[in-house]
């Protein structure tokens, strides 16, 4: 085992698994090992996120789990027309998940989840070919979710979490494809929004159909990070335009779409369980990113036109011994991006993910989790066709993109 751990650490100290858009689907180490399934499992405190109803079926009177993941992502861009390219130099992503669940009575459980389901950090080289669309973006949101679950009987339970989301985004790009000041430095804008928040809900229902089969439904409501009065800084603005492009504030909405997940798990035997989840994400709410500046600078309208997505997930876990549990999984993640709106802030196509994981039970109470995953992306040639020059002519920006994501996560669980 030592060898495996060493191998794991040495090769995957960098790694990432971004889902479509800016959703980061890594909310639990155990789940991640199984293709990020969990709506019909209810075996660890991770269920606070995956399906609050599962809290009612947890065996221990109190369960705690915490984990963090290191995600390495890279996007390579290449234009066959010009035979030039660029590669992002993005820092490691580090989504976390902390969950606690406690039984109050045979019927009532309560708990808390803290997790980071949305985020994106992409850093392109300064003034690269697509810098009029994006140079750098860093989006992060943390969710805090106090939760209760109710067990109706041996077979049915339901759960409800209230979600408080707080997030921020920093974004910079060049103002257009050509504006420079008199020294030839490209004019740019940086938008910085922090402490933007919203509330929502995480609802779940779970049923034990029989000794082997369990089903679950989970719905997370749409939320929206509505920035208002946040700072917009303009740099390298020509003197003659400086009265227009004054540093100002702006408003913009970034939707965090609703998600419905249907799950089914099947206990093959005492040791082996298979789980299948189907996620539907209402990405179609993200029609455009509209940045409304609070001065005379015209609104920046960035068409997105996302489509709803379906993600299919499957995972298996095997209790090898009292000490060891091993997991494997796969999921197919649809991209919400439509052809002709491939913006370089998140230019990923449909992606298959392979995941593996393991738990080492140090004692009946303390366990350590590890998971690793990689995305299997094909290169995709597409363009963003809705960029308009100042005279209104559309100026498509296209090329071939290849995203690579992989990562590794570590967690610890304590039950009593």
């Amino acid at each position: 085992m030592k060898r495996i751990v060493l191998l794991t650490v040495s090769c995957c100290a960098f790694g990432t698994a971004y889902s479509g858009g800016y959703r980061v689907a890594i909310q639990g180490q155990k789940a991640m090992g199984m293709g990020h399934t969990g709506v019909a499992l209810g075996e660890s405190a991770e269920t606070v996120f995956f399906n609050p109803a599962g809290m009612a079926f947890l065996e221990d009177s109190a369960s705690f789990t915490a984990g963090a993941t290191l995600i390495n992502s890279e996007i390579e861009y290449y234009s066959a027309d010009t035979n030039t390219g660029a590669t992002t130099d993005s820092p490691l992503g580090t989504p976390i998940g902390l969950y606690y669940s406690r039984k109050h009575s045979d019927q009532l459980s309560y708990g808390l989840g803290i997790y980071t389901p949305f985020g994106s950090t992409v850093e392109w080289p300064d003034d690269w070919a697509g810098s009029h669309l994006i140079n750098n973006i860093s989006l992060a949101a943390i969710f805090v979710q106090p939760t209760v679950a109710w067990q109706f009987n041996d077979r049915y339970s339901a759960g409800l979490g209230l979600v408080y989301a707080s997030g921020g985004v920093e974004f910079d790009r060049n103002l257009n494809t050509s504006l420079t000041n008199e020294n030839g430095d490209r004019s740019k804008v940086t938008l910085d929004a922090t402490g933007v928040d919203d509330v929502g809900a995480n609802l779940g229902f779970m049923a034990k159909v029989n000794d082997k089969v369990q089903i679950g439904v989970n719905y997370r409501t749409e939320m929206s990070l509505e920035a208002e009065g946040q700072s917009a800084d303009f740099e390298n603005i020509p003197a003659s335009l400086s009265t227009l492009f004054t540093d100002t504030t702006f408003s913009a909405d970034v939707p965090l779409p609703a998600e419905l997940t249907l799950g089914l798990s099947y206990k093959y035997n005492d040791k082996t369980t298979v789980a299948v989840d189907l996620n539907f994400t209402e990405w179609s709410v993200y029609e455009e990113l509209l940045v409304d500046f609070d001065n005379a600078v015209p609104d920046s309208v960035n068409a997105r036109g996302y489509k709803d997505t379906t993600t299919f997930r499957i995972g298996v876990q095997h209790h090898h011994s009292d000490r060891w549990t091993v997991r494997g999984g796969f999921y197919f993640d649809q991209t919400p991006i439509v052809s002709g709106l491939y913006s370089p802030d998140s230019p990923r196509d449909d992606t298959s993910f392979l995941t593996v994981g393991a738990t080492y039970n140090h004692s009946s109470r303390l366990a350590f989790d590890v998971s690793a995953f990689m995305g299997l992306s094909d290169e995709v040639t597409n363009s963003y066709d809705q960029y308009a020059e100042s005279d209104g002519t559309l100026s498509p920006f296209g090329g071939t993109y290849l995203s690579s994501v992989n990562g590794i996560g570590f967690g610890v669980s304590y039950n009593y």
Partner: protein
Amino acid sequence: MTYQKTFKYSAVAVATSMMLVISGCDDSISKPGSDSYSAGDADFSKMVTVGDSLTAGYADSALYLNGQLASYPAILAGQINQVQPITFTQPLVNDNTGGLLANGTSLGLSNRLVLAADAEGTIGPAPIAGEPTTEIGIPAVGPFNNVGVPGAKSFHLVSTAYGDITGVAAGSANPYFVRFASAPTTSVLVDAASQVPSFFTLWIGNNDTLSYATGGGVGVDQTGNLDPTTYGASDITDPNVFASVYNSLVTTMTANGAKGVLINLPDVTSIPFFTTVPYNAIPLDAETAAGVNAGFASYNGGLLQAQAGALITEEEVAARTITFAAGNNAVLIEDEDLTDLSALSLPSYRQATAEDYILLTTSSALGTLADPNNPLSVVGVGFPLNDAQVLTASEVALTTDANEAYNATIAALAEASPNLALYDAAAAQSTLATEGIQYGTGGITATFARGGGFSLDGVHPTERGYAVIANDLIDVIQESFGATIPKVDPGSYRTVYTN
């Protein structure tokens, strides 16, 4: 199956997945790698680029450092260097201001133009502040691979007086060439050929019609005059003189078996210097139009009298009759090609048509008062644009005829030798002017100041425009000489500068 065994399988599965992760890290877009680059049949070891301002990297009415660094020869050389390591030198100026000094005294050339706001807040081209620092009395020591000389016409390249500082004031020498000429008595061609080029580009002849056109056709069409030493600065070069000079340029450049690209000459009327100001640039309301028409009633009546006297035809009467109406009106111009009716006290006036080109530099004069004390002397309405402010249809025809003759010479020479390729810059510029050019990450058009293709002088490309030209040349070189050379992304080059 024992636990031990199951565990081994699981361990192998985990380890295999980890290996996949490692291999995933090396993923990369499939694209032509540097191992696929090749010089083909060409040898770029000594590349020399010969020409005028376009070859020098001139833009925004000035030769300045950033423009030179983004000249099409510099961009081309940078890409060729990835195929075959070469050195490529240019006679770089000192600064990004522009202008030249001769023995400490400014030659009065324009500083580079940037977009800037005037006192009323209107944004337009204006020279950037600063004093020139590039001294032509201090020789730039070559040899230089780029021998582009702003202002040069075809026959200047073989002139042995062109680099002599004592001839600058008289116009027989060119200050840009004076600065980097290897000796006062050398010629541009000698300095180019003495480097024994293995590869060259030649783009000369633009100024042979352009100086006439930008001067509004004040110069003389010298077709028929075979002695260029008698030409004025704004004259059209005789096509036979051009052919003779061009022939000797090509013969000399290819004397040692060099391969090269000949670049033909765009039509002058495809550049924003001529296409930005519309011929009907005068908006009037009905009342003003009626007042102006009343002022021209006697002129219009005089035309009919002249026709009655058989001095002019009915067509000329129609062309010369002046009528203004509510809306946009054609500007009033003076056209010396009209029949001289000064004996009847009638000036040679008419209104412009879509075939006449109002110069970009004329836009500031339009609508002003020729006589500040006379409100009826509005330029373009009550007072005509003069000959130097408009390139009339008949003047356009002269430049077009000459240009076609030059291009025929260039095409014939390119066709005659397998060592020579032709870049049809005329077609490229026509495409730019009519529909714009897309390059995958964006595009440029010929729209003045905003299109991204032309710099603020309305004649020369922007750095981005030069990058498109460099990519086109790479296409031509690949096609003609079997080379494989990476291109540049024009979108990463600048357009106009704004202050």
